[in-house]
């Protein structure tokens, strides 16, 4: 991935990449532990995926919920109103396990091609 980080990437292309993997990244984060929307957005940013807006993130969470890959519960926040927490399901964990291997192969392929090109 280091080679990709070196490239000057326009926002459009970055957004396109993200569209393909955002649901998997969210599942991956939830595989580490339950979380809520805003915290997931912060974790994604910390991971270097840039600022994910709520308008992008929550529909993805709804789709994951709808397809049974995550379950939800509401919990009182620190003094504030209840927050919607997401828990990854057994099916979600299976998807993460599958995707991890597929993504490594895919990213490896892309990386190899780009690296070859810059090496010339």
């Amino acid at each position, binding site marked *: 991935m280091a080679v990709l980080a070196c490239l000057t990437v326009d926002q459009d292309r970055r957004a396109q990449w993200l569209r393909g993997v955002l649901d998997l990244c969210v599942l991956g984060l939830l595989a580490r532990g339950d979380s*809520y*929307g*805003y915290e997931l*957005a912060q974790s994604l940013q910390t991971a270097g995926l840039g600022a994910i*807006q*709520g*308008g992008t993130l*929550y*529909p*993805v969470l*709804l*789709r994951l*919920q*709808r*397809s*049974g*890959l995550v*379950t*939800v*519960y*509401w*919990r009182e*926040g620190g003094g*504030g*109103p*209840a*927050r*919607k927490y997401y828990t990854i*399901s*057994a*099916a979600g964990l299976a998807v993460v396990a599958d995707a991890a291997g597929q993504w490594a192969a895919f990213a490896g392929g892309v990386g190899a091609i780009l690296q070859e090109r810059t090496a010339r």
Partner: protein
Amino acid sequence: MRHEIWLAALSDELRRHGVGPDLAGHVVAEAAGHLRDSGEPPLRAFGPPDAYAAAVADSVGGPAFVSRSAGPVRLRAVDIVKRYGKRTVLSGVSLTVRAGQVAAVVGANGSGKSTFLRICAGLDGADGGQVEVHGTLGYCPQAGGTADFLRADEHFTLIGAGRGVSRPAAARAGARQAAALDWAPGDAQARHLSGGTRQKLNLVLAGLGDPDVLLLDEPYQGFDRGTYLDFWHEVWRWRDAGRAVVVVTHLLNQLDRVDVVLDLSGVAA
């Protein structure tokens, strides 16, 4: 204050896009929380209310199921007949539910839904037919089933003991299952709990020890809308964990998401 206007507009737009009131309430509450946490202006975080509502409607409109295969048969009821005096309540009713499936038993009041479930649970005898259960069984009645003078944690211990679950494991499982229904059991005896909370207790007890077959008789009586959704999420979770779940219900809005529907309307006289 501008948040409030945007959130109110979102609420309207969700309704316009055909998003049900339960889900719309959750979406608005979640967006409000996000705006509060992030301190961002709503238009930047979510865009215009109509566009975000459209994205939400789009996300929930897709197919409900992840493709998966059902496991071995857990419950098989064949040609069940039940009469009360001269009245035939069930005349040759059959149902097969496999591991990883949810069956809904529907029908008008008096169509024998609860009777059928009680026969499957072995609580009532049938006048004909046969029930096979492969594995352990959890049953949640419509009401009753709790002991007035016991606290929730004492119920967990008691029912857990009957299913070979140790006291600490039963307490942990009970608390976790209760949390999934948005309930934190306290020190109150069951007789002091509201009807809805007693049903949550019943539901938690039915699932203790992870039985292979769960028979749930309209367990959501007295639940508020949020908890009702939590209940169905638990049902999907049980299904995904390979349990066979039978839910007696008169509410039809979840039927597109169950695997088997047994309709008792018009079966009996």
